[in-house]
């Protein structure tokens, strides 16, 4: 950051005013300018971390100063970027409204150089100071906390290792204590505890068994039952622990030490007064000790120990509620029942690794790493570096990379992407931007937004295929994007990043292959397989709604033509027939070469198919060079027809057979009398 001048954003619709302010401030600051609120938001989005202060006019086109303040509030920017109003509006209500929206100062016109510099610099210093102080403070607090809990952890692990326990117990008791206290605060205000108190008690809970260090290990680690004498020795760990804390020569008055004392001494007291060492009863037992007591019992029950197996959490709670493990404050028992489910989850998450020595070493490392006043400046630098990397990579990759920002709505493209699409790098309000609309059809853009907004934080990636207009050509493109969801509890849709990939050549190749697979190479008509699919589909979709005729024919004396005039001529005849079919059917009709000299025409008709069939027949049977073309055509009508393609095909075939039997070169419609020939002619 050093050596770089701090950046100031000047937002005013009058260029002259911006220039005047820039002129006054450019010695001390780097100046960014925006001529309306929308531009300002765009710049904020991009340079959020670098902008130290903003000078904001009120009356502006597109988006005015109040809207900018409102949006900055919404995005939480108002707290990190100080805003000084510079409007020519001097009405009190205007100024009040700006202050209410979070502006920190107001420079009235006319601008006075000394006033401007002074206000900007002092406000700037103030916020910088504030920020640095709060950073420093929070880092110090953080470190102190870490040190504290680190020491406590070390201490309690010594106890536990000696005790032959895993070390998880301390962590579990910590979590249970914290959760119980939080639940207790929700339930009642009987015990006035602050968030800080709760943290303190949870931390101090780790100390509950430090007195055990004074207990001889043959007693402490005895697997079987204690004799009454041994039990008396064991009981002493409460008083001994408290004494250790009481004997600390310095800092006896620290809250942590005081609470630790209570916990050590009284975590084996009972609510009914029959516990030890002092036989305190009810709320004479400090709440800290009461809570740790119940936490200790719960964890002891649900964990494996040298003398017992782990008990299932539900059963453990039943035992505690049933009074089998001591007498507790009824309120705390309620709390325990309330958090039972959450507790199961929480405790299963506390891993063994966390409690090992390595874990502690990591904590120390982390503390060391995070110290120093440079930490926050460094994180800003890191973010800047990431952005630089991203920009470089997106610029050199020959891909259209984009970022979509939901509020204010805009699209930002990589340099190459913008160039390829022929649009600006930044497109504000794309739905109404003519350049953008000319590339992406509005309905496609809407479709994409719907898709991406329907995604979830768990499944944020969506894809879509769209026909885009790039450089005056319609091209197929695939859009792959990842939605960006906020990280709050109810994540909000914030935007998306993604890329647009040209799949036009790919799609064209696929289409060509499909075309190839579906068509007969000699005549270019559909082949039988493809035709079957399409016709079946049409029959199925329009059952009872549309009338269709299927005409099947072959060329009379084709074999003879082949023999007399040669195969090449035969091929020419087939091509000619195909052309005649194409010329005489509509684009919605289907012309098919079944194979050899057999063809099919499938078409829709209104009242009667006869006129169409007659016309087609006449056109087909025109003489081709020296060859008298004749065809035998059978026609089947799908009218009130419930069958499939095969049925219709067989009907037409039977009709064709009838024509052949009656001397060829004619057409005839299928009638029920032909039923006998159905499906037989081709066997």
């Amino acid at each position: 950051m050093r050596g770089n001048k701090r950046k100031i954003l000047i937002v005013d619709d009058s260029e002259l005013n911006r220039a005047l302010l820039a002129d006054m401030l450019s010695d001390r600051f780097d100046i960014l300018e925006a001529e309306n609120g929308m531009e300002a938001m765009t710049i904020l989005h991009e340079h959020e971390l670098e902008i130290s202060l903003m000078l904001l006019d009120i009356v502006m086109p597109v988006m005015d100063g109040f809207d900018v303040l409102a949006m900055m509030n919404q995005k939480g920017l108002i707290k990190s970027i100080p805003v000084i109003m510079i409007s020519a509006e001097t009405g009190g209500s205007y100024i009040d409204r700006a202050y209410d929206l979070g502006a920190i100062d107001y420079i009235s016109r006319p601008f006075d150089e000394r006033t401007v510099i002074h206000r900007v610099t002092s406000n700037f210093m103030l916020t910088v100071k504030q920020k640095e102080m709060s950073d420093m403070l929070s880092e110090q607090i953080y470190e102190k906390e870490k040190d504290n809990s680190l020491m406590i952890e070390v201490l309690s692990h010594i106890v536990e290792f000696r005790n032959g326990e895993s070390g998880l117990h301390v962590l579990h008791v910590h979590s249970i204590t914290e959760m119980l206290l939080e639940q207790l605060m929700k339930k009642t205000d009987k015990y006035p505890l602050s968030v800080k108190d709760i943290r303190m008690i949870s931390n101090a809970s780790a100390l509950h068994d430090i007195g055990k260090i004074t207990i001889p290990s043959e007693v402490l680690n005895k697997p079987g039952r204690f004799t009454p004498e041994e039990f008396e020795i064991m009981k002493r760990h409460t008083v001994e622990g408290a004494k250790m804390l009481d004997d600390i020569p310095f800092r006896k008055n620290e809250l942590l030490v005081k609470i630790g004392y209570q916990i050590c001494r009284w975590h084996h007291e009972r609510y009914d007064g029959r516990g030890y060492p002092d036989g305190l009863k009810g709320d004479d037992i400090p709440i800290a000790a009461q809570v740790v007591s119940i936490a200790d019992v719960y964890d002891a029950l649900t964990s494996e120990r040298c003398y017992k197996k782990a008990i299932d959490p539900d059963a453990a709670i039943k035992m505690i509620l049933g009074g089998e493990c001591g007498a507790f404050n009824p309120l705390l028992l309620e709390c325990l029942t309330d958090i039972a489910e959450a507790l199961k989850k929480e405790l299963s998450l506390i891993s063994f690794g966390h409690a090992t020595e390595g874990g502690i070493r990591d904590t120390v490392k982390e503390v060391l790493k995070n110290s120093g006043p440079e930490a926050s400046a460094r994180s800003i630098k890191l973010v800047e570096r990431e952005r630089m990397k991203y920009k470089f990579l997106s610029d050199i990759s020959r891909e259209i990379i984009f970022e979509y920002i939901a509020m204010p709505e805009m699209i930002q493209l990589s340099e190459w992407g913008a160039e390829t699409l022929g649009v600006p790098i930044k497109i504000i309000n794309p739905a109404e931007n003519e350049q953008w609309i000319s590339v992406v059809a509005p309905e496609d853009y809407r479709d994409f937004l719907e898709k991406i907004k329907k995604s979830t934080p768990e499944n944020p990636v969506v894809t879509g295929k769209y026909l885009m207009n790039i450089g005056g050509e319609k091209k197929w493109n695939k859009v792959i994007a990842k939605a960006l969801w906020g990280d709050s509890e109810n994540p909000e849709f914030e935007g998306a990043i993604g890329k647009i990939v040209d799949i036009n050549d790919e799609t064209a190749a696929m289409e060509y292959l499909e075309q190839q697979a579906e068509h007969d190479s000699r005549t270019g008509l559909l082949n039988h397989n493809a035709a079957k699919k399409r016709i079946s589909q049409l029959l199925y979709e329009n059952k009872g709604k549309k009338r269709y005729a299927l005409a099947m024919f072959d060329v009379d004396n084709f074999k003879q033509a082949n023999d007399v005039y040669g195969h090449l001529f035969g091929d020419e005849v087939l091509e000619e027939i195909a052309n005649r079919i194409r010329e005489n059917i509509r684009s919605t009709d289907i012309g098919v070469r079944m194979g050899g000299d057999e063809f099919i025409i499938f078409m829709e008709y209104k009242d009667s198919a006869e006129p169409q069939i007659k016309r087609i027949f006449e056109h087909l049977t025109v003489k081709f060079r020296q060859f008298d073309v004749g065809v035998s055509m059978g026609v089947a009508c799908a009218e009130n027809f419930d069958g499939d393609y095969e049925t219709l095909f067989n009907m037409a075939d039977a009709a064709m057979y009838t024509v052949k039997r009656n001397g060829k070169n004619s057409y005839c419609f299928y009638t029920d009398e032909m039923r006998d020939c159905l499906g037989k002619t081709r066997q």
Partner: protein
Amino acid sequence: MNVRECYAAMGGNYDEVFSRLRTDERITKFLFRVLEDKSFDLLTESLAAHNMEEAFRAAHTIKGVCMNLAITKLFESSNKLTETLRGRSEYGEDIEPLLAQVKEDYALTLDCIRALQ
């Protein structure tokens, strides 16, 4: 014509602007930018098209600039027009004399600034 004479001629307050902007050089630099400013054209065009909102903003901008450069005469007429246009959705005849005054003052201001060159 020097800067002080220019201010006297166009009805501005030289002493005031000098105390704020500190040098003749800077004052001159920004006076010249008034010549390039499009707000006046925007004002007349918007009023002709009865686009009241745009007209208000343009008048407001002229007023703000004049305030900054202590061009008092044009400030006063543009300020009156701005207040008349504030919140207006329809054109009215009462605007015409105010616009005429702004036009006159604007022309004078431009002439004086040009005489500086």
